[in-house]
């Protein structure tokens, strides 16, 4: 019997000949990703009583959650992180303005095929788009990894998603993710490694693949992975300096479930309040009035996402009474979108541009909602009260659906604009 991606990559990392799902292994991760919560992790780290982090080159720290600091509390937290970085000699530190940690991590060369990455954020699986094993952990554990340089991991069972044929026009990776989460529910991939493969995946850009792996957290996945190909290697060229060996699942590996989908039959999908698995085709929710549209975040704030939005909004103007917030996932994406004129088009159409970062996604600043308001967002969570008032509602959709919705002021099928 062959082995899954997770079984192979963790065996390699643990120095074992092979591993099997369910086995507990101890590995030295290649990277530990932390963000604004570094200050809290650093405080826990100090309690352990170890003076120095085990390996400063393992740590990647990105300030992204509430940046620039919204108030004194956040400012003090950022200050503590900067002091920790200086004290510990951590060179991979990216201060406010660089972007969201899940975007900055690969951009700065900290993700590669076969790498094992852990991060104190639930969307750490995003880096699986590069053929890495990437999983989210908690703060306590992140502090322990800082101190010891090691982590115990249970080799996850694997689930394979096979996406054949091509996606229709204006149907994107986000729609695939939402459809899958609706199918599998919020816990359908609990503890599992999700492998994405098939023609439609091969046809996707690296950025779109990141949307898939990012959203896998919303079905409970431990990690998600897209097999690296020429597109991956081209994207990583000039970013990753060390040599790497890609890890591929065996053709006869054992999966707990194989899901086969015909991409050509998919329609744009929307997650309705208040859970990500409350999914419906956009046609079923079309017409619902919105107050705000958000295009960005670690799910859909990349150049290809902004391009799609600009294509729909170019030369037009968003509906009266709608606020459109655009926040690129990173400085690099912002610069590329500026160079292409995408940002100019969006601003001319009435968008409010925010700095690269998490923005309003987690409800701490930059676009929180009042009671009774509705936002359609390209982000990954629509939990009750996540973006401000508990009495506000969040719908999730693709960049195309978001742009079409901003244009009309009601949830709109992007195939109709």
């Amino acid at each position: 019997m062959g082995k899954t991606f997770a079984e192979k990559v963790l065996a390699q990392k643990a120095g074992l000949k092979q591993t099997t799902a369910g086995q507990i292994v101890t590995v030295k991760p290649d990277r530990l990703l932390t963000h604004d919560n570094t200050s809290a992790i650093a405080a826990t780290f100090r309690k352990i009583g170890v003076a120095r982090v085990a390996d400063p080159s393992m740590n990647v720290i990105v300030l992204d959650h509430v940046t620039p600091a919204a108030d004194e509390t956040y400012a003090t937290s950022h200050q503590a992180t900067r002091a920790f970085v200086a004290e510990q000699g951590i060179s991979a530190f990216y201060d406010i303005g660089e972007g969201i940690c899940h975007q900055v991590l690969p951009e700065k060369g900290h993700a590669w095929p076969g790498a094992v990455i852990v991060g104190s954020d639930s969307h750490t699986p995003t880096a699986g788009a590069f053929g890495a094993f990437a999983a989210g952990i908690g703060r306590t554990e992140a502090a322990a990894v800082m101190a010891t340089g090691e982590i115990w991991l249970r080799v996850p069972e694997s689930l394979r998603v096979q996406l054949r044929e091509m996606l229709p026009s204006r149907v994107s990776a986000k729609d695939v993710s939402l459809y899958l989460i609706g199918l599998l529910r919020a816990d359908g991939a609990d503890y599992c490694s999700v492998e994405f493969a098939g023609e439609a995946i091969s046809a996707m850009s690296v950025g779109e693949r990141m949307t898939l792996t990012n959203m896998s957290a919303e079905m409970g996945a431990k990690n998600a992975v897209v097999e690296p190909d020429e597109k991956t290697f081209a994207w990583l060229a000039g970013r990753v300096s060390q040599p790497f060996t890609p890890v591929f699942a065996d053709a006869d590996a054992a999966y707990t479930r194989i899901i086969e989908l015909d991409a050509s039959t998919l329609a744009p999908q929307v997650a309705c309040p208040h859970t990500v698995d409350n999914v419906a085709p956009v046609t079923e929710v079309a017409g619902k009035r919105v107050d705000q549209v958000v295009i960005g975040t670690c799910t859909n704030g990349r150049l290809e996402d902004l391009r799609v939005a600009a294509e729909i909004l170019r030369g037009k103007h968003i509906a009266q009474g709608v606020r459109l917030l655009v926040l690129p996932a990173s400085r690099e994406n912002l610069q590329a979108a500026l160079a292409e004129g995408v940002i100019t088009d969006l601003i001319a159409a009435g968008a409010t541009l925010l700095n690269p970062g998490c923005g309003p996604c987690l409800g701490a600043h930059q676009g929180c909602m009042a009671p009774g308001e509705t936002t359609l967002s390209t982000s990954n969570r629509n939990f009750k009260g996540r973006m401000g008032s508990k009495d506000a509602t969040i719908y999730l959709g693709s960049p195309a659906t978001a742009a079409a919705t901003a244009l009309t002021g009601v949830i709109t099928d992007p195939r109709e604009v």
Partner: protein
Amino acid sequence: MKATQITGRLWVLRDAEGNLYNDIDTDMIFHNRYLHITALAQMGQYTLDNLKGWEDFALRAQAGDLIMAGRNFGSGSSRQQAVDCFRALGIAAIIAESFGAIYKRNAINSGLPLIAFPELSKYGVRFQTGDTVTVNFVTGDVLRNSAEPFQAQPFSKVQLAIYEAGDLFEYGKTAES
């Protein structure tokens, strides 16, 4: 060595329809508006304050109490406070049909006992808030009101070792010595 069998008063988290609450996410447990809080002592008061019908849980709970919920408890973000708020209140264990993956690790590493009870969808109706429940972490035995036995999953080896040590850090020390 910590006790591997505990007895306490039970809170059964049910929704408005009276079903066991499924998919209680980390924003319902510890809302993101309190994420700047990192001191354990301050966390307890906000526990479950964004879970409909349970907003005043922190005022009603007592140290030693147990909690019961449905599927996928603790889904969502990796925030440590969603585990630590229960520790702050002195909650002795959380029994659920299943747990969010990161949540489970966080709780194990922090020494908060989580009991996976896969057949809870079948037996959940038998439990009521106020029941006295005994849980054995080693065997997975659950006893309701000293009379009615059920079988949940025992702790895994690593979960038991970390729990007995106190938390991941204490466990690390024992492993090295």
